[in-house]
């Protein structure tokens, strides 16, 4: 690249970084500002940091179990969606059966109805089986929409793996199941990682189902935040503190699978 182009690219990069990071920095700063600094008319850049909000909201207000709830719901949802969805995607990619494409489309239709239209029936159903206000109900609800994501994304990854790979595996001595577990899953690992991150984020950030289905014991962080909007005003410092903690697992998770994620989201990663 020539010099002017390098400069332009650098400028664009910086612009993107500023746009992406400013809200997060703002959030983080608010979480360590006193209420007075946070509500100041002109933004205060120089201030004495305080850590009062964190212990207050997580210990005094008892928000710590919410972190745990969110973690459980998001991880179990992700695991469940993958365990069911990945083999299903493999079947869609490799086998022919009657009504295959219709069934595949059916998975998509599960996402077509606006969530608000199914959340009340879901509430009633979970009420009948006594699952209201449990993490189980939320895990099941989140799995319903994550499953379609897994099936649709993973079919693309399996389609990208040439069938000859399956056949080479069979010639090398595997059963078809052996081919799936020992060859295709490792080859699809980038795709699985990318899908897992998306599943985890969707479940972690989800508000509507969580708000309706789990009000007290099973509350997740997203449901916890509105609880900080009080009749005496919004506790911005505590809201920010919860939000900062809420973003940490996503950042951590993304870094963990980053190597796979880049390859996975750009597709074509498995072609030899």
């Amino acid at each position: 690249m020539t010099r002017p182009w390098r400069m332009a690219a650098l400028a664009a990069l910086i612009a993107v970084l500023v746009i992406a990071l400013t809200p997060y920095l703002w959030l983080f700063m608010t979480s360590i500002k006193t209420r007075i600094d946070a509500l100041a008319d002109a933004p205060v850049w120089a201030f004495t940091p305080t850590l009062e909000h964190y212990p207050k909201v997580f210990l005094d207000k008892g928000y710590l179990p919410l972190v745990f709830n969110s973690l459980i719901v998001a991880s179990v949802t992700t695991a469940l969606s993958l365990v069911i969805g990945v083999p299903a995607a493999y079947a869609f990619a490799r086998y022919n059966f009657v009504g295959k494409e219709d069934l595949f489309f059916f998975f998509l239709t599960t996402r077509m109805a606006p969530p608000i239209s199914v959340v009340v029936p879901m509430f009633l159903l979970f009420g009948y089986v006594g699952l209201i206000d449990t993490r189980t109900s939320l895990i099941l609800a989140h799995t319903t929409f994550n499953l379609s994501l897994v099936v649709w994304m993973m079919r693309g990854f399996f389609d990208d793996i040439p069938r000859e790979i399956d056949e080479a595996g069979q010639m090398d001595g595997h059963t078809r199941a052996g081919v799936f577990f020992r060859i295709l899953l490792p080859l699809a690992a980038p795709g699985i990682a990318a899908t897992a991150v998306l599943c985890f984020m969707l479940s972690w950030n989800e508000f509507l189902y969580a708000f309706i289905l789990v009000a007290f014991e099973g509350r997740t962080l997203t449901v916890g935040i509105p609880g900080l909007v009080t009749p005496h005003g919004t506790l911005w410092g505590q809201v920010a503190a919860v939000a900062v903690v809420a973003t940490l697992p996503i950042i951590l998770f993304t870094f963990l699978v980053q190597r796979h994620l880049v390859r996975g989201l750009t597709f074509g990663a498995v072609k030899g």
Partner: protein
Amino acid sequence: MTVAFHGVSKIFGDGTVALDDFSLTFESGEFVVLLGPSGSGKTTACRILAGLEQATGGRVEVDGRDVTGLPPRDRNMSMVFQNYALYAHKSVYENIAYPLRVRGTARQDIDDKVRAVARLLQIEELLKRRPRQLSGGQAQRVAVARALVWQPAICLMDEPLSNLDAILRLQTRTEIKRLHAELGTTFVFVTHDQEEAMTLGTRIAVLNEGRLVQFAAPKEIYHHPSTRFVAEFIGRPAMNTLDGRVENGRFLCNGLSLPAPGQGDGPSVLGIRPEHIVLAPGSGAATFPFRLDVLELIEPDMLLFVTHDGLSMTVRGKADAADLKRGVELHLEFPPERLHFFDPESGRRRP
């Protein structure tokens, strides 16, 4: 070891007949080439032998044992695929070692065998690489190494040279022939390229429209093609064929009259290979005048496209007469021992 197809047929779900009553028997140590145009069923035959495809009729036997329903892993065969099908997430070493690992070979054995086959194929310096870091020719060698490392009874190759460029293809062809000579493994090689078939095969099975047309040594196929299809498919440029009729022991067609001893009267097809037509120095008793239409030089040979009274023919000769001009009259001689006769209806060879 004897491998036998007994009346094998394959009809796909959409009704396509890929193989129709296909029978073929060959012995261990052979280099069998399945040759045919696309859609002739050659790949299907290979895949049925491998167990990757299920026959809809007939049996496949190895040493008299019916293997028709066996999964690929129980057949003691390996395969080289057209696109190589290497495992992208494993190193070259692990790719080659993989069939041994799956079969539970001891660790030290695996290392010995991988290094031995890598030496044989001259890919020792590539063992640490990933498949994506290989050129087409290198990937091809790795695929062959993976297929040979565990010494299967039969090595199947499905158009393994088709993805290589022309020069590499010739080199690899020679290499495969050398491997067969050194290892004595039975090879079954699928190709649509008659030149590959002629150079590699100990015997060639020519397929057309799902049927076996001829199964014989390359020399026999070249000199005694059993049908008009085989005659035109083998040899480049293709054999000249003329539709005419035999009367009183002579073949007649557009002013040509050639000896056809022993041929019964009636419609007949005459065939002669371009390289067997003789360019006579001048007009003679057994020559016919043709006009030169196009001349192509393929040193040290030349191809002459000639016409005579509505007939078109191709002649292949040495390029020493290359100063010929378009439209010049040539005298061609058709040696009687080089003539082939075919039935115009069935296409079968007439003795």
